[in-house]
């Protein structure tokens, strides 16, 4: 439900319930709030949220808790009371000694883990769907990126037989040129995909073809990696500029085919 990991959320709520029932001390509540929030971010979602975002949330919450605890003299006294007792009362001497050893050990372990992480190649972000130019020229034909549509798409209703011919030609083009990277089933998992970085586009994905206009797809096909702006890291992408190998019709046909194969429609003009 809402991408939540329900057992974890329920368990955290249950712990909170027990604390309320036992009338826990303010300090226990503060620690519980931080711990529960951390556990919620880390385990509470089906898809974990990024570590950096969780850290920001925890930092803000931590500050708020400090403000809360120190908002009045009484509350502050109540909050630090357990700490005072731990330090002062002889019967907690063993626990205090344990803590004195455990905290430095934890800090030492953290530093050790930081220093010994296996090295990794530096990674850089890239824009997956960078803004296209306003127009592009392919084989002497200039198209307006904002308004251009696949010239053969309308055959789907006007002339299904002709549409099928274009699709079949697109199928030929795809399996003569594209599937090594984009895959037989178009999952972006072709036989060369494991050797490429960035990985090839996955056309099964609902977040790819359906959100793009066919003119955008045509731009990517015709101009390939060399046509990307710097934000799309053109130096890393293996997408060929297919204008070197294919005619305009072949490129529109394969454009048509990848939409049809996946049962998607291009995003229509002016549709957001």
């Amino acid at each position, binding site marked *: 439900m809402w991408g939540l990991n329900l057992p974890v959320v329920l368990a955290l709520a249950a712990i909170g319930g027990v604390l309320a029932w036992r009338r826990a001390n303010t300090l226990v509540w503060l620690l519980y709030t931080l711990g529960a929030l951390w556990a919620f971010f880390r385990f509470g979602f089906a898809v974990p949220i990024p570590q950096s975002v969780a850290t920001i949330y925890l930092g803000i919450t931590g500050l708020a808790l400090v403000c809360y605890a120190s908002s009045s003299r009484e509350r502050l006294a109540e909050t630090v009371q357990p700490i005072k007792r731990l330090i002062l009362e002889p019967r907690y001497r063993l626990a205090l000694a344990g803590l004195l050893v455990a905290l*430095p050990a934890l800090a030492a372990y953290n530093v*050790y883990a930081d220093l010994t992480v296996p090295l990794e190649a530096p990674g850089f972000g890239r824009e997956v769907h960078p803004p296209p130019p306003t127009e592009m020229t392919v084989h002497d034909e200039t198209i307006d990126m904002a308004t251009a549509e696949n010239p053969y798409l309308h055959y789907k209703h006007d002339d299904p037989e002709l549409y099928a011919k274009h699709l079949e030609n697109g199928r030929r083009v795809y399996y003569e040129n594209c*599937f090594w990277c984009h895959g037989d*089933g178009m999952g972006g998992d072709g036989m060369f995909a494991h050797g490429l970085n960035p990985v090839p586009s996955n056309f099964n994905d609902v977040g790819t073809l359906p959100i793009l206009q066919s003119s955008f797809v045509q731009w990517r096909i015709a101009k390939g990696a060399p046509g990307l702006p710097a934000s799309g890291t053109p130096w890393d992408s293996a997408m060929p500029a297919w204008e070197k190998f294919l005619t305009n019709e072949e490129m529109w046909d394969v454009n048509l085919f990848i939409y049809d194969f996946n049962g998607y429609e291009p995003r229509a003009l002016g549709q957001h």
Partner: protein
Amino acid sequence: MTGHAMGRTQAAATLAAALLVALPASAQVDLGTEEQRAAGKVVYDKYCGQCHGDTGDGNGYATPRVRPKPRDFTTGKYKFRTTPNGMLPTDDDLRRIIEIGAPYTSMPGWPNLTSAEIQNVIYYIKSFSPDFENPDRYAEPIEIPRPLESTEESIARGRVLYEEQACGACHGEVGRGDGASAPTLVNDKGDPIRAADLTQRWTYRGGPTKEDIYRTFSTGLNGTPMPSYADSLEVEDRQHLVNYVYSLGDGDDPNYGTLITAVYSDEPIDLQDGESLDALFESAPMTRFPLVGQITEPGRNFFPPVTSIEAQAVYNRDEIAFRVRWHDLRADTSGRNNPSLEVPMWDEDNGIGGDESDDGGDSDDFFGDFGGEEAPAEDDFFGDSGDDFFGDGGDDFFGTADAGAGGAEFSDAVALQFPASLAPAESPELKPYFLYGDAQNPVDLWFVNLTYGVADTFRGRGSDAIEPTEADIVEAVTSYDQGAWTVTYKRRRSSRAGVSFAEEQYTPVAFSVWDGFNRERGNKRALSSWFYVYTEPSVEQAVAGPVLRAALIVLAIELLVVFLVRRRARQQAAGEGTSGASLTATEAPAV
């Protein structure tokens, strides 16, 4: 035509059903219902026909550009079966390949298909060959025993069998797919085929487990030179052989990496002193990188046989050395090669077994008239169909190859690629185009043509702008040993015109490998994306110091807090004239 075929198979199915009563239990003709086959056809036409052909003859759109070629279902011959040599596969055998695919071929797994869809496709595939109507072609699956433990004795026994059975004739003495007859292997359609590299288990087409290997020994791969050993080896011997072959493997997984860690050494790097060089590299971690075909720029290479390369690096005060290693079925050391050799368009689809006479002596003519001759050349190539092509070209070619060692027209080669300069600090992500660079951001290639075994340096400003450069001297030594090429490079760390290797620096690096036997040259090559080489600090970073410091700081803070709290309590106690014990009593918490 399809309707006709369906009618025929249906009639046969009825006949088979009628015969079923009289058949031995082993023969199970199950061709499905007409509806199932029709449903299978829908799935087949969408997902399978582009490679296996809409009529099942293995001649789809992709066929000219993939090796091994897609299965021709009309022959009824299947490589991966649990049934004895020459027999038809079971439905489960077919299902297995459809579900998981054949690694490092163009056959992927199809996890998106439901079990029923797969069964329907199986019924449809079986309708392509009349063999499936013939009860005599069916047999019970072989029994695959639990693997024996890989004891030293078992592996040793397997090794003896490997030699006795001459497995090395194709697979090579240590299993790198480089046997003497490896270059001559063809399947029964005349298509060139490669012996498995037994050291790279992850590339085994039939699967990497001991059970998979045992199955291959016991059933053979129909239609290929790989025979069945069911008659010549006892079950237990086959199990020992499995253990030996398994022991040749370099792990289950390629463990592809993204980084070469160059380690520091005080020793001099002497390329001529093989022993000290090996000792130097012993301490350097080895990373395996994936290689794929160059299919972005003209001169495309759709089926590179070399699928990975291993690399390591060491450096000292002045110099840096790289060592790369990859497997190649034969050392091609007599041909020509360089990064900018032109590859005519028609040659993209042309692998081993190509018609050499066409561009052997008169290749210059051909390149000269390239524009004009492109169309007829392409027509000839496809028009004459595979039979003629491989019949003549193939025989000639293999004859030549046998006569002289390494008789290919193009030599094996390798190149390291680095950016000509490092990215500016404000945009560290910037790199040259990974395909030989671009006009603004050139690359340097350390190219070794293995005919000569020396390094030539090129500066690339794009695939059509590669020029020799002599700004830096790169030295290289090469060796070919039982199917493995090893090339060791050395250069001064500081460069006059290219990239310098400073300590603690990440430098982009990419690889290219050319297999002369596969007619690779110029842009027709196996290549990698950009990866990195990291020059590890020469002074080993101490871990103990920072760890101890962190612990002591935390301890000091703790002690300070304890001290302050206690002093405060003592002062309070003194002020109020009460003891610490009564303090806790009065302020007892609510918990």
